[in-house]
């Protein structure tokens, strides 16, 4: 039977790793969803039905957290006792912040440029490249699993959060400029 005191990986019977097999995640999710289908519970008691609602909520939460590379990294750190989900007070590398500032300045200038489409694409390439390298960086620190390495992994996650936000802003601008 399902157990919501298990962590998301255990709940889905998947190995605790950053290099998650997304196809396996989708398959496990489908299997569990099938066993949780409300029709199967119509003959059950209120208590059992309530449980099934709880399981479904937990399953959805688990899948959406593990599917996204940023929240997956954050969740792995949380399991190690480092909570990066809502921290606001952290020291960050000024050079990194400077670069973030410049990227946002470039994004701001896109709308007024002669070829916004090309500018956006170039920024998207940068975001994808940065994200990829931060994911690799996170994975290698996470695997080392010493306290120092995990702290370094948390730094990678914090950087990912800025890149992720920039990515969402690029998308929003794209919608605004091209979806008439």
């Amino acid at each position, binding site marked *: 039977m399902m157990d919501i005191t298990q962590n998301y990986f255990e709940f889905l019977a998947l190995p605790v790793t950053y290099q998650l097999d997304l196809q396996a995640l989708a398959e496990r999710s489908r299997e569990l969803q099938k066993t949780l289908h409300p029709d199967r519970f119509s003959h059950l008691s209120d208590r059992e039905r309530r449980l099934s609602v709880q399981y479904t909520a937990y399953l959805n939460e688990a899948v959406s957290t593990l599917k996204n590379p940023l929240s997956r990294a954050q969740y792995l750190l949380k399991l190690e006792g480092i909570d990066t989900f809502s*921290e*606001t007070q952290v020291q960050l590398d000024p050079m990194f*912040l400077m670069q973030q500032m410049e990227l946002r300045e470039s994004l701001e200038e896109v709308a007024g440029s002669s070829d916004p489409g090309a500018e956006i694409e170039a920024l998207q390439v940068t975001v994808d490249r940065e994200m990829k390298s931060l994911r690799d960086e996170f994975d290698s620190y996470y695997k080392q699993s010493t306290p120092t390495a995990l702290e370094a992994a948390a730094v990678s996650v914090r950087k990912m959060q800025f890149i992720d*936000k920039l990515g969402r802003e690029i998308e929003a601008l794209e919608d605004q400029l091209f979806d008439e």
Partner: protein
Amino acid sequence: MAYSEQVIDHYENPRNVGKMNDHDDNIGTGMVGAPACGDVMRLQIKVSEDGIIEDAKFKTYGCGSAIASSSLVTEWVKGMTLDQAQELKNTKIAEELALPPVKIHCSVLAEDAIKAAVADYKEKQAKKQ
């Protein structure tokens, strides 16, 4: 969430947006960021020879409260000594802008930014000697 009138005023008419040359000796630059919301803030001060902040500029990519907090700080620190600026408390910023509890961290970010700018200026001066 509803923004206070003070926040909207700073958001719609931000004071002192801009950039000063980071390489000048009399400029201090503070760069800070909040990962949870992805906000980035740059706050710069221009310091006179007798240690008074003559000018301040900022650029913030973030929510209305973060923009308003940094805008307000640039207004306040002009004419202050470095010590006065360093003692600026986020609670005063939050109070002036009537920030709700969930936005207090924006005022903390602005306090961190002015502290970082003063520290950067002092470091530059120390290097000169």
